[in-house]
């Protein structure tokens, strides 16, 4: 903990700035970008968080470091070390399966690989076979659910210090993140959500979902079809032609619009490892992090996609109050500050929607989003604003969109953004 306490907010900011720039222009030569950055500090921060692993690491990712903006080398490490526990031993995997299902591994599957094929967020995935089908069996690390709460409690003050935030202002965000992280340890919940989303998205032809096998699923084990394909980051880094990239990007866009606007239940962790490209289709895996929203919240949150808000101060103010971003106690100067910020944010984040057809390869767009975030973090006036602002649900909605934009940027896809978004603009 002493290590973390020594890592100040300034280091965190520099770290983010460095990563943001590198992500936007990965081909640029490194030395130029390294000027002005204390690289040793950045590595120390990353090293410290990855050593904490589990809850703390995920919390850090949630609050500040979107792994999609990290430079490839670090992003790869973050992706691999999502929980960063050593792999489960074969005797432990065997025991977990026997404990969960009351049958030996041999009775449960025709074949089961003792070594994990790859890691998952808080577990690992094994290849198995049953009735001629190749299966992916996800086994959770024992004790994670128990540790999650205490891990979060331990890291919270440190994260606050690094980010320069006050506890009372973001308490509701922590509660939200904690609730989602705890949900993630219940694979039975993941099964239910996965089936709900898959059923509701059955009409999207380009999006595929694995079959789950409920009689081999429990709170700690999930069994589903094994799908061959490339994870989205590897696909994006490959040499797929533009038309194909656009196709996959469109599938991803339509999938998200459908979930958020029609289903009001969405896959809230748009991490490239959660998507595969298989046989020209987008396949969605890992429903560990999903978020349901009420129609009421949905209406308020997406009222921001109305371009008329940008022209009318009155309407913008009303919308901000309805989302608890503007609070009754705010004076005129604070109000102006927040509304200016909101105006800039809304313009930027709704640009893809208003364009009708948007090229996500455009580096200036991602850079503008990043710069906005950084400017906000360094803004003294903004940091001095008190009060618990914003709705807790926004954390994951914003993360979902932010992540979506980052994925599409990586894909360099050109997407029709007017399709599928049910009466959003001009609502």
């Amino acid at each position, binding site marked *: 903990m002493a290590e973390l306490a020594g890592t100040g907010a300034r280091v965190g900011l520099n770290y983010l700035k460095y990563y943001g720039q590198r992500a936007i222009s990965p081909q640029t030569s490194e030395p130029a970008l390294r000027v002005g950055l204390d690289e040793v500090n950045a590595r120390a921060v990353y090293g410290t968080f990855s*050593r*904490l*692993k589990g809850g703390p690491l995920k919390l850090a990712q949630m609050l500040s470091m979107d792994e999609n903006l990290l430079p490839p080398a670090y992003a790869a490490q973050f992706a691999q070390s999502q929980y960063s*526990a*050593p792999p*489960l*031993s*074969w*005797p*432990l995997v*065997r*025991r*977990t399966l*026997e*404990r969960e*299902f*009351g*049958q*030996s591994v041999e009775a449960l599957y025709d074949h089961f690989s003792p070594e994990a094929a790859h890691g998952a967020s808080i577990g690992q995935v094994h290849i198995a076979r049953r009735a001629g089908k190749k299966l992916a069996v996800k086994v959770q*690390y*024992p*004790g994670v*659910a*128990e*540790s999650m709460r*205490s*891990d979060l*409690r*331990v890291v919270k003050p440190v994260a606050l210090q690094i980010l320069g935030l006050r506890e009372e202002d973001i308490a509701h965000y922590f509660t939200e993140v904690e609730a989602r992280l705890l949900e993630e340890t219940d694979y*039975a919940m993941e099964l*239910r959500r996965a*089936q*709900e989303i898959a*059923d*509701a998205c059955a009409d999207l032809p380009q999006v595929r979902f694995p079959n789950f096998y*409920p*009689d081999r*699923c*429990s709170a*700690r084990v999930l069994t589903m079809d094994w799908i061959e394909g490339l994870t989205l980051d590897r696909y994006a880094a490959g040499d797929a032609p533009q038309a194909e990239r656009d196709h996959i990007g469109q599938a991803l866009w339509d999938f998200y619009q459908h979930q958020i606007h029609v289903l009001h239940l969405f896959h809230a962790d748009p991490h490239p490892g959660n998507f595969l490209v298989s046989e020209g289709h987008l396949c969605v895996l890992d429903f560990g992090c999903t978020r349901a929203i009420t129609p009421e919240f949905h209406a308020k949150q997406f009222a921001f996609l109305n371009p008329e808000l940008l022209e009318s101060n009155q309407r913008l103010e009303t919308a901000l109050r309805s989302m608890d971003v503007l609070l009754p106690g705010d004076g005129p100067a604070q109000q102006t500050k927040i509304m200016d910020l909101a105006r800039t944010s809304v313009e930027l984040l709704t640009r893809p929607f208003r364009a009708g057809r948007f090229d996500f390869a455009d580096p200036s767009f991602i850079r503008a989003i990043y710069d906005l975030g950084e400017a906000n973090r360094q803004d003294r006036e903004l940091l001095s604003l008190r009060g618990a602002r914003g709705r807790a649900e926004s954390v994951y909605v914003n993360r979902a969109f932010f992540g979506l934009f980052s994925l599409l940027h990586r894909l360099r896809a050109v997407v029709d953004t007017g399709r599928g978004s049910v009466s959003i603009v001009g609502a």
Partner: protein
Amino acid sequence: MVHLVRRINLAFLAGLEHRVGKVRRIFYAMDQTPHELPPLRQRIEEAYLHELRSEGRPPVSVFRFCHRLGITEREFYAEYPALEAVERHWWRGMMERVIHSVESGAEWSDFSARQRMLAFLFAYVEAALDHRSLLLMRLGHKAPIQPVPEWSALEERFEDFARLQLMHGRTRGEIVSRGPLTAVYPKALRLLLRSVTAFHLKDDSPKFERTDAFIEKSVTVLFDLMGRQALDSGFDLLRFLVPGMMRRA
């Protein structure tokens, strides 16, 4: 669509009940001794345990014990040198059964020493669920380094088993001989057994999951120490334990 989800949930729950029954059947099978006790020894053992479990203390005197059982003292002393020996022998029998169950596993001969110790400890804590109240009685208030007289025969049996596995590990190069330090290894494994038991008795996580994690991490640390690896696993174990320590603080 909601109906579909609900049907799946109901089916899952129905299956679960059936499976819980099965778990008990698998592990009760382990309780059948590979070498059946002669009838008198078995009666003595059962009567002793019955009194221990129901009264919370062992039989007070040989005389009364024999009288209740309807045997003579001579018959008793033909089987056991003292009342305490009954319990010692029973605990040893429990250890024997666990060892037998893992050694007769199909993968045993292919397992490394580390994997064998893991498999053994998992089987051990599973078997311990049948005797939790007795374990609490005998070990619940003792630190892992404090001796437990009732466990002396069990620990001897375990140590024999542990030495065999260490030899197995040495032949495979998994465990490194470090001269005088090597003599410590069996003692370390005995301490591990006691630590795992202590942890298990205090564990209140669902399905005792945390004990599984503790076993995994401590075996890793111990075998890394006995082997050639660096000590990252120590940090992992500490991190696993630290939140708990901070909770108690």
